[in-house]
């Protein structure tokens, strides 16, 4: 059984067809990259999967570990193990990073029937994970994403991913706004979480992220559907010939 299964997904935004019958199957232990030009439907795909209001499917279905997501609200999907690393992480003024993380982690633990972590145990765990991600304690004390640099925001996203231990993580343009050093830190953080029980879907415009997070499969998204799939070498083809060549060939 696939961890994540998208079946013939169709979605309209303001009467415009955005996803036009997209299908994708992701098994545990796999890393998939979805590449595509601007306007191909990449962000729509990630919002649809995460269950954002207004991004409901017109037809088709999505399954997480065999269970349909369509009837589930965004928060239920998250607690069930679906994680979205945002392209533009949102600022929450006054909401401390540590408290936010703790609420999130305990929601997930509760769902899994695990005991909620008390303040001390949580802080200990968070510090341990944070130090691996080169996230300073000081950042956890600040309000979520407020005044963070682009790199800090992305690192904080991956830190949340590490704490929540999701089944399926969708990384939406995680490389945008990162310099090479930050890109390496973030990628190391993601790679450290690859294991046989989870899966990662990397959504990106550029190939360069895939030098660091090497995918098992690459899919080219164009005009609302996947037009070509292949191995890591497909990304290099994009790099070399651009999207236009691939799209015209398809």
């Amino acid at each position, binding site marked *: 059984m696939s961890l994540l299964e998208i079946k013939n997904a169709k979605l309209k935004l303001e009467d415009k067809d955005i996803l036009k019958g997209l299908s994708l199957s992701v098994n545990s232990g796999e890393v998939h990259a979805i590449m595509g030009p601007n306007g191909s439907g990449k962000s729509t795909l990630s919002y649809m999967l*995460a*269950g*954002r*209001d207004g991004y409901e499917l017109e037809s088709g279905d999505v399954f997480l570990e065999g269970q349909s997501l369509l009837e589930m*609200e*965004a*928060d239920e999907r*998250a*607690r069930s193990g679906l*994680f*979205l690393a*945002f392209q533009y*992480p*949102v*600022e*929450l*003024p*006054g*909401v*401390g990073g540590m*408290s*936010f993380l*703790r*609420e*999130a982690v*305990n*929601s*997930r633990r509760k*769902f899994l029937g695990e005991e*909620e972590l008390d*303040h001390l145990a949580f802080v200990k765990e968070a510090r341990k994970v944070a130090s691996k991600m080169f996230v300073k304690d000081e950042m956890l004390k600040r*309000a979520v994403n407020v005044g963070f640099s682009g790199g800090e925001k992305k690192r904080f996203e991956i830190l*949340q991913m590490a704490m*929540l231990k999701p089944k399926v993580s969708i990384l939406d343009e995680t490389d945008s706004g990162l310099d090479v050093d930050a890109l390496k830190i973030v990628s190391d953080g993601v790679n450290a979480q690859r294991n046989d029980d989870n899966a990662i879907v990397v959504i990106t415009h550029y190939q360069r992220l895939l030098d660091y997070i090497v995918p098992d499969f690459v899919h080219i998204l164009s005009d609302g559907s996947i037009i070509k799939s292949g191995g890591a070498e497909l990304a290099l083809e994009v790099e070399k010939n651009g999207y236009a060549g691939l799209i015209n060939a398809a």
Partner: protein
Amino acid sequence: MVATQETINKVKEVSSTYKYGFVTDLEAEKAPLGLSEDIVKFISHKKKEPRWLLEWRLKAYKKWLSMEAPNWAMIDFPKIDFQDIYYYSAPKTKPKLNSLDEVDPELLRTYEKLGIPIKEQEVLAGVAVDYVFDSVSVATTFREKLAKEGIIFCPISEAVQTYPDLVKKYIGSVIPISDNYYAALNSAVFTDGSFVFIPKGVRCPMELSTYFRINEQNSGQFERTLIIAEDNTYVSYLEGCTAPQRDENQLHAAVVELVAMNNAEIKYSTVQNWYPGDKDGKGGIYNFVTKRGNCLGKKSKISWTQVETGSAITWKYPSCVLKGDNSVGEFYSVAVANNAQQADTGTKMIHIGKNTKSTIISKGISAGKAQNTYRGQVQIQKNAKGSRNFTQCDSLLIGDKCGAHTVPYINQFTPHARVEHEATTSKISEDQLFYCLQRGLDTEQATSLIVNGFCKEVMKELPMEFAVEAQKLIGISLEGSVG
């Protein structure tokens, strides 16, 4: 923020939104219905007051008769029938209590239900409490310990008997009887409240707290609190309030006067949770309150912190008169208005002395079809050279049927002063909600988190136990307002 999960649990655990809505069945002694000179005399007689106080009350009553209710606030309500209110209601218990064992067990149970046991050993360490039930104070804890430091903390009715000179000297000295309509009414018919006196050089070793409860139907609560801090003192005072859930509106018109001498600091915190009325605006407390502090001495400081979640109507402007040179006034406020609630609240900072400083941080949260107004005045008088004010008013809207209004008045009579005003209005954005949901928080958790984040600057001014309680309250008050 740590309390957010507790908030959610609490919300789920209480069936109705307002959990203090129960009524205590106590035999009460009431004055006849309505207001007249005789009622004023009745109250004064009940309290065995000296002649001067009766005369003061009668003067206030006459003044009140000649005044009109103010109509400048952004609140809308039917005219109050002052003849349909009981001005005195007291539980029938022994008139003088020697120990807590003598408190009516039914009363003890009421406070236990409110989560505030009137037993010293159970009270959070370091908080002395005065319990005011309708028109009388029913118990004051830790009095002996405080007395050792020379601190007086007792019901004001008792202070009138025991320390008449102090009361006579200061009552009405900050808020004269003619100050405004509701203050005049309070001066005529006030029944009880707390009296605090901190003698020179004493730092009060514990938080002082008064808990106000309106129980009787159709009764008004008109409490009066007076706090005097002599030279080189510090006191932190907390005030909490609840009332039963009733279909009729009830009037609460309190007066609080603070006096701070040289280098004295008074920190006054309120968590106001009077019954707000039901979803459609039926019932609830009309809260018309006058609070003012005089920073008489040099380098004195008065700090008001309020979390206003209750009442159908809130009309309240805790203010500071900064007379002493280098004195400091602060106002930190969170006002939550949900459903049909109306809040018109803010502060006045009157700078008279040189180099006086004031800070105003106001956070208004509107939800449902509520209207929430910040109204504030900053006045820098001619001699207040070198004075500074900083004002920040932030409004948060939840939903699209509520309103937020900011009405600042600034009068500056000297060029040698600096006044800054910042105001923002924001909504809980869909982006913020979605971000929280994507991390597994449900809508109420997310709202509570975002709202408490919005209020953080004010909440951190509250004493610890109070802050936790206030966070829970805000969560409960906004239940069901999103999603």
